[in-house]
């Protein structure tokens, strides 16, 4: 049986008196592509931020066998080094070039020479399908798709075990989105990285994810394969898969 790399039990997150997530239980297995689905504002990003230790939470979040809410600072730092994160807005440092952006994690964690760092950076850029010429460019000089790829490359710099993607394909055209999906699958296969992503993109959802969970009304509505999730008895999910947009999607797929 495949080991659970992340195990969440009875997780509760609240901002002041407002409870955002309650009694969340999910299992994420090693080397899988796991999707978090849910309405806008249902707390998907909050769940991700809780696992990333950016949000205070109650309950158990076990990452690689370590409970984050009980771990000490050193252990938390070690877990953080196993994480790679790509935020929704790509969030590259705008005042640094792409090369310098990717070099930041390496320079912060090691004292390697520049030429080794640059070689590693160029390798990671090539891994996500970016050419050498972007090395010297600033984020605002790149297109949205390239910026997202650069952000993905930065998330990969330290060879993370788990990579978090917040709406990786939002704002991309379908071709770029496909390209991005392919890159994610390749990385997942080649490097054995566990991928956790938040997405509304049905193509990504059916195309690349192995398992998924649906967050609804602060709780986990369902967890399982995309096929299981599609056949859940829930109004929002039915609207998602069989509503106007979803229908077109299935119609097109049948043609």
């Amino acid at each position, binding site marked *: 049986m495949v080991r659970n790399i992340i195990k969440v039990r009875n997780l509760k997150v609240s901002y002041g008196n407002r409870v955002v997530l309650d009694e969340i239980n999910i299992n994420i297995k090693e080397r899988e592509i796991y999707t978090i689905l849910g309405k806008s504002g249902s707390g998907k990003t909050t769940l991700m931020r809780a696992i990333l230790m950016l949000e205070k939470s109650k309950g158990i979040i076990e990452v690689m066998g370590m409970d984050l809410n009980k771990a000490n600072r050193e252990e938390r730092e070690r877990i953080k080094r196993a994480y790679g994160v790509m935020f929704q807005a790509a969030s590259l*440092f*705008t*005042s640094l070039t792409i090369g310098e952006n990717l070099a930041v994690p*390496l320079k912060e*964690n*090691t*004292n*390697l*020479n520049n030429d*080794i760092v*640059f*070689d*590693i950076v*160029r*390798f*990671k850029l*090539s*891994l996500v399908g970016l050419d*050498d010429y972007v*090395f*010297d460019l*600033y*984020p*605002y000089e790149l297109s949205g798709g390239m910026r997202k790829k650069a952000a993905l490359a930065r998330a990969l*710099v*330290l*060879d993370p075990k788990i990579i978090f993607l917040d709406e990786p394909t939002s704002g991309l055209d379908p071709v770029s989105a496909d390209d991005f999906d392919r890159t994610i699958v390749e990385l997942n296969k*080649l*490097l054995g990285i566990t991928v956790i992503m938040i997405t509304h993109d049905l193509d990504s959802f059916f195309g690349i994810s192995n398992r998924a969970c649906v967050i609804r009304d602060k709780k986990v509505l369902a967890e399982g394969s995309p096929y299981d999730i599609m056949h859940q008895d829930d109004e929002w999910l039915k609207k998602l898969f069989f509503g106007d947009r979803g229908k077109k999607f299935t119609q097109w797929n049948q043609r």
Partner: protein
Amino acid sequence: MRLELEDKRIKLFGNLTYREIKEIDRYIKKVIFNEIDLSNAETLDTSFIVYLLRTNKKLIISEKQKQLIKIVKENLKNRPLEIRKTGFFYDVGFSTIDKLKRLYYFLVFLGEIFIKGLELILNPKRVRFKMIVKDVELMGFNAIPILATISFLIGAVIAYHGAIRLKQFGANIFVVDLVSVSVLRELGPLIVAILLAGRSASSYTTQIGIMKVTEEIDVIKTMGVEPFDVLVFPKIISMLISVPLLIILADVSGVIGGMVVAKMSLGVTLRDFILRLHHAISIKTFLAGILKAPAFAFLIATIGSFEGFRTQKNVESIGESVTISVVDSIFAVIIADAIFSVIFRWLGI
């Protein structure tokens, strides 16, 4: 990580990740070897492989590691990296040209203000009264407490320093001339201008700069609205309203500061002070200060907005623009003040 050297072959055990590169780098430089054996490694990451491939030595690998190394080899670039490098003379030349360009663009900006200002006067409907009132509140009205405090203290300090000398000559009453003339002619307007250069110019630059970064200015343009109508003219007009009023406040508050000190340390009564004030200053003294107001107002508002429009699309550039805008507007205000002094001397005011 653990290292073993055996027949010119380095054997590696344990974790081989980016954190161990420095260690092996140090080790490799000390020993002579032909091969590196990775097959006993527990974990191996791509950064480490990038490093090993750079050494150009033979790698002995296990079946499991084969694929990972293949991926790295496929993506590794052999060409040296080309990074733009610039020399000293290039930098000097570049920044000189850049400064000249900035001046040129500022003149262009002034020209635009002139032409669009004429258009605005011909179509008074386009004037945004609400925005002007709002800006007067933010930049003028809200500055009253700090301005009143500063100018009160400046007036008091001048009177206090003068008091020691004047007492020696028994010329106590002339503290009135000292305070009123210096505050009304020079210090009042200058304090207002410098305070607003720090307070308003910076806020104008940030507002327009961030709007440029978030492409809000382009949105305004596509709506068929002239950005200057919304972003520049309300600021200029609001400054033209606020600065003279604030200068009057600074004058009054500064003289009151002098009055208090005169009473306390020189024994000049309030009655004497005010009577003397009539002789010390005339309407000319007041005008010499207040006439500077439109120029200061215009400089602060235009430099603040200009730097905002010059902002590039990155975070650092906003900080840079704000710094330049504050420094430049203070500089411009002081230069303008010097020019006014010369002109007033010629005119005999």
